[in-house]
């Protein structure tokens, strides 16, 4: 019984640590976003609650926060949709059609996940400049799609491979073309998998930093992570309250997604990784 009690104690301690460890910075972010001054911890000023920072970032056009948020949402959503569609096509072909060269392609995709982002940006920067795409959505969407594709393909391959082959056969007998099989049978049946893939792609695209930093120059295409990273006050003083309020507002969509689709995300993540 001694061992059991120890184990329970350990469980409790780890649970507590986990909650504090994971939430503390987030809570701190929220507290500062609501406080008039970030300096109350030094003891020189008192904590006074205010929504002023939130009002400021939303109503001050020169901060461009709303632009950043809109850019991020648009770019991430389009990238997620396009990459999931492309990945679904590829995964269907990879799991069902037994084409020569499919092992090579799977291997290539695995390799691509290992590439450092820095080894792409030199060429991509020149390409985007040459295309005249710098500071447009295109400069972000195309690289993002390519960047999240390997993950999407891996996840979907593992989902599709699980579906019984007899479903395909039945659909073929019923007169479907390959495209119809994917659209009318495989995709609806693997909908949870497609949903987790799209969610993960969205979160990955939303998180991306280096491309957005280099390929955008102002509020017309700049995304939230870059916007917040470069957020400066007018007079050199860092506007902590505004930064934290902006952080909270921009991560709320992510957190809602993460919590609401917790199961899907965890499933997708583990499939993408464990399969690889």
């Amino acid at each position: 019984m001694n061992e059991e009690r120890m184990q329970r104690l350990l469980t409790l301690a780890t649970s507590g640590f986990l909650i504090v460890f994971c939430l503390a910075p987030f809570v701190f972010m929220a507290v500062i976003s609501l406080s008039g001054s970030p300096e109350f911890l030094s003891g020189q000023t008192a904590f006074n609650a205010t929504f002023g920072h939130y009002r400021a970032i939303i109503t001050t056009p020169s901060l461009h926060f709303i632009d950043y948020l809109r850019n991020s949402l648009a770019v991430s959503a389009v990238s997620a949709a396009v990459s999931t569609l492309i990945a679904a096509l590829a995964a269907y072909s990879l799991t069902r059609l037994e084409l020569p060269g499919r092992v090579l392609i799977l291997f290539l995709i695995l390799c691509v996940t290992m590439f450092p982002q820095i080894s792409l940006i030199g060429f991509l920067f020149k390409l985007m400049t040459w295309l005249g795409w710098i500071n447009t959505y295109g400069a972000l969407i195309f690289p993002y799609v390519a960047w999240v594709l390997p993950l999407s393909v891996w996840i979907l391959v593992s989902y599709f491979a699980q579906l019984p082959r007899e479903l395909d056969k039945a659909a073929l007998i019923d007169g479907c073309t390959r495209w119809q099989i994917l659209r009318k049978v495989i995709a609806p049946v693997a909908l949870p998998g497609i949903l987790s893939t799209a969610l993960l792609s969205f979160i990955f695209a939303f998180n991306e930093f280096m491309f957005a930093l280099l390929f955008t120059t102002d509020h017309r295409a700049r995304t939230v992570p870059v916007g917040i990273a470069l957020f400066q006050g007018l007079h050199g003083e860092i506007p902590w309250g505004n930064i934290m309020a902006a952080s909270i507002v921009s991560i709320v969509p992510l957190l809602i997604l993460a919590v609401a689709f917790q199961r899907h995300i965890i499933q997708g993540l583990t499939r993408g990784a464990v399969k690889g």
Partner: protein
Amino acid sequence: MILTLAGLTKMFSSLRGDILAVDDVSLVIHDRELFVLLGPSGCGKSTILNLIAGLERPTTGEIRFDDVIVASGRRKVFLSPKERNVAMVFQSYALYPHLSVFENIAFPLRIGKQGATGVEETVGEVAAMLEISDLLRARPAELSGGQRQRVAIARAIVRHPKVFLLDEPLSNLDARLRLAMRGELKNLQRRLGITTVYVTHDQVEAMSLADRIAVVRQGRIEQVGTPDELYNKPANPFVATFIGSPAINLLETAFAEENGVFFVVVGDQKLRMPDEKSEELRRLSRNVCLLGIRPEHIHLDRLDRRLSGQRLKGRVRAVEPLGRETILHLEIDDSRLTAMTSGGELKQGDTIEVDLDLKRAHIFEVPAQGPRARQ
């Protein structure tokens, strides 16, 4: 519709090497016939069915629907399943889990672009025929095994296919349901009059359903015939063993001819063969044969009175009462036999007199590598 397979071969290449799944199969399946492909697991039955359906491409050989060549290895003809208008029922049913029963049945029609009104009606008719009208709103996951089976069949016949292909459709059902569905399937097939190919590894199912059966083994056809023919005139020991339960007794025995009369040796005793078997024995190349006697053709003294006068002394090794009948494992000198009787008076260790109905015995050539090794 007449379905013709001519010299059909299918080779799979895999990491294990090349597998000849179907080896030079030629068959003619008659119009409106219920034809059964029977064979052990892995013998290539499903592959033959897939070839007929157009899900696989033959390596060589030809498939004809009436006079139309639907697949030919040599002539590079290959019609897709859609163009062949075949229907198929799978062992796992392969219902679309995201669609309601109605939509499952309507699926082939919708793909085939029928008018929406026609769909309602046709689905309703087929559902009524299979008595699943009240399930149309349900999802496949909510159905029992038997109900799923019916939905799968409904989906298959809704398009009035030219050929109806069934791949072990009953093997996922429990024993009682299987029996009931067997009867229904046969009725349905008669009513629709669609040429049907039915795959199973269960010989009882095959015997009870089939107009004709092809016994398949390692991709090759061993024998084609009506259930009666397969039971009474098996072409080889494999077919003899595969048909009938409990399995036929195969005894490797020496035989000799004396004054035109043939004798076989069973145990330590010599038995006279009936004259009508002489011709068969004379054709054998050596003086040994494989003597096949079905358990139901072994008669026992005290229980049966139809004795031929040639009795063997035997001992009961084991008794397996099945209720209506009893299986006996007998030992005659050093040979072992299985017999079937309707009584239950014998017990282990009893000594009895055995009479073999040699008129109904089957005679086979002894295969080179010995009879047991081949099974």
